[in-house]
């Protein structure tokens, strides 16, 4: 990457960080754990990096690491969204009672 591209990436990072600081406020305590869990599932986005490395050229060690990373990240993503939904479903059931 050229230095301009690096700065473009830094701009993106900076703006996304500020968006992240603003995106949540006044969260009720019951939502702390589900929100944490949902955000955690999103951080499994590193899956995309693992997939492109896994689908490209490389020695067996690279493939092995990328394969492991892809599995772990998928568990993080799928399991993360799934447990968040289970928590929120219970939350809703309690609300309607």
């Amino acid at each position: 990457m050229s230095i301009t591209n690096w700065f473009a990436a830094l701009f993106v990072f900076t703006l996304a960080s500020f968006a992240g600081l603003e995106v949540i406020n006044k969260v009720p305590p019951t939502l702390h754990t589900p929100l944490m869990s949902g955000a955690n599932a999103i951080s499994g986005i590193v899956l995309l990096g693992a997939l492109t490395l896994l689908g490209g050229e490389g020695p067996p060690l690279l493939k092995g690491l990328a394969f492991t990373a892809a599995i772990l990240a998928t568990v993080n993503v799928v399991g993360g969204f799934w447990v968040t939904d289970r928590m929120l479903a219970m939350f809703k059931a309690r609300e309607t009672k």
Partner: protein
Amino acid sequence: MMREIWVQSSYLAATIFFFLGLKQLGHPATARRGNYLGAAGMGLAVLGTAFHPDLQDPWLPLLAVGLGSIAGIVSAQRVVMTAMPQMVALLNGLGGAASALVAIAEYLRLSQVPLAATQQLPTLIALLLGLLIGGVTLSGSLVAFAKLQGLISGQPLTLPSHRLWSLLLLLGFVSGAVLFLVAPQAPTALAVLTALVIATLLLGLFFVAPVGGGDMPVVIALLNSLSGLAASAAGFAVNNNLLIIAGALVGASGLILTVIMCKAMNRSLTNVLFSGLVAAGGQADGG
């Protein structure tokens, strides 16, 4: 060119989905929909990645996603409601591990292509950061999991001169990192990288062990924020904007959530993180 448009469009859509998803997750009325939005964004991003020019062989990625999905659904469905906090910690640790592994794999890919050192340096720094934050997230989350699951004592665990050891570990990591950056193509570079991995894992252990079991939810929130930053660093290393954006979103919103959770307990973050250390120091002084 056409493929790249599909990839980038899906990433752009995923960015919007993630932002709206996080926003809605914070409100009781919309939380469940917010979670679906996040999942939909992730699905879109993975589908878009199928068109990525770097992705030549789709079978291994498909297999990995298939296996991971099965493992994810089965474990998420089986876990009991009371064990949710440690489940989140465990999943978070896996994400950190994935970021660290992606950083190492990217190094292996880079070491095949001869590049000018100046071109490589920012990438190498980014992947070292991904390795550091990812490794700390992994071992820290595992300690949090073990404490909540009752595998180890929930009491603050400290070593004699705990802070000194932590500092030495950090110094060790920094000097190892410099050694690696000076000669990234040397035959010993992979050994240095392995040593750095061990240092990051120990750092995570030293970081979380002194925190009491009751404060674990706050620590998990902080580790969740860190796993976002690890993904972001990996995004800089592999040159993927969506990793940078989603990682930064989670990193920043996770930090805010951590502070909110501390406030709900009428504590400060430093108090939560270091009171175990102070208590241990006080005992040592008294005895």
